[in-house]
């Protein structure tokens, strides 16, 4: 059972991801953060196996948070959650070592496949 940290400013998006991670895949969500800065702190404190990271967030966006998490642990597994058209952000995230991407609106089969793969 893998431990997940969800970082997303939308409570709705966090609930949807938690539902899939816990009820469909049988993993556990050990923390939720509503912006990148809180996400980095929670990563450092909780050491999750996988982080799902929204890109567009207030205070600190997902790109900056990814960078800081990778500085804390270059092996950290981070899945970026993007609105469908954020191509430029995706390129930045790839350069910073993001492991996977999930586009909103969520496509069920691909989200399950990606979460399963990263949780191994």
């Amino acid at each position: 059972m893998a431990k997940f940290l969800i970082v997303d400013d939308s409570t709705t998006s966090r609930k949807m991801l938690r539902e899939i991670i816990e009820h469909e895949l049988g993993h556990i969500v050990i923390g939720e953060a509503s912006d990148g800065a809180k996400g980095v702190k929670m990563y450092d404190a909780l050491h999750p196996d996988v982080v799902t990271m929204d890109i567009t967030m207030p205070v600190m966006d997902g790109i900056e948070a990814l960078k800081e998490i990778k500085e804390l642990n270059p092996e950290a597994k981070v899945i970026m959650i993007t609105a469908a058209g954020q191509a430029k952000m995706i390129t930045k995230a790839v350069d910073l070592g993001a492991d996977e991407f999930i586009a909103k609106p969520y496509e069920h089969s691909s989200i399950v496949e990606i979460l399963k793969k990263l949780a191994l």
Partner: protein
Amino acid sequence: MFFRIFGNYLVEEEIITEVQLDALMEYKRKNHVRLGMIAMEENKMTPAQVKEVSRLQALVDKMFGEIAVEKGYLKKEELADLIIQQSAPYLLFVQGALDTKIMDKEEIAAHLQTYQDKYGWTNEQMRIIKFGSVDDVSAIIVETEDEWISDLFRLVLRNLNRFITNDLYFEAPKRMKTFSAPHFSGQEMVGDKNFMLSFAGEERSLLFIAENYAGEKKPLLNADSYDSVCEFINCINGLLARRLDEEDIDVEMLPPKYKDDFTLYASDDMYVMPVRIENMLVMVLASSGQRCVLI
């Protein structure tokens, strides 16, 4: 779509009353059969499978039928048969009008002809209005001078239909400089081209969107409910951003905002499209060009 389009026309022309249209809508609700229900009736899926697919549908960007096929519960050809049984709202309208004795077949045919003449629809456009999907109908009704804004409105209607309700009615967008409403959720995209997409209206209409998108009851239009509306808008904007990216138009999506008792000022014109979701009015606001000011 047909119930609301033709029904509203009949009310405006004082051919039927609001009460009679409500009766027709009630007939549609009672006689509308969900795909899962038809699948069970036809012994194509078990109740447990229908429940599972319905739960998944609330979480992902897919229709019931797509998930059922993906899961192997339905074959594609079986799904096609079920959809045919489920569709044809025009026929259901005729059946409803006859059953409720609101008008007979000849009267319906005569009023349809008058409606077609009034709006200047071609026979092909009338076929689309009678039998088409929301996508088909929006392609003929939603037109603005900015094709990107038209695309954005059509994406809104498609996703309202997909995630929120199939009881939709909309009118052609109109240009405006300012707009005031008691409740507002919106998001800007800035970059090579600036866009704003917002939903505005009464509490109950925005709550309805929030509840149906998040798949849970929300008693008040509070931060949590607004968040669900904002997330819905974020997804729609993302779909537009994908299309913009294909044309090498680079935009950045800003965090969505919400506000009570607001007025929106647009330097350039914005377009406002009235949409009725289960007869609750939501104004969909969209603009491109100069950024909008929210007060």
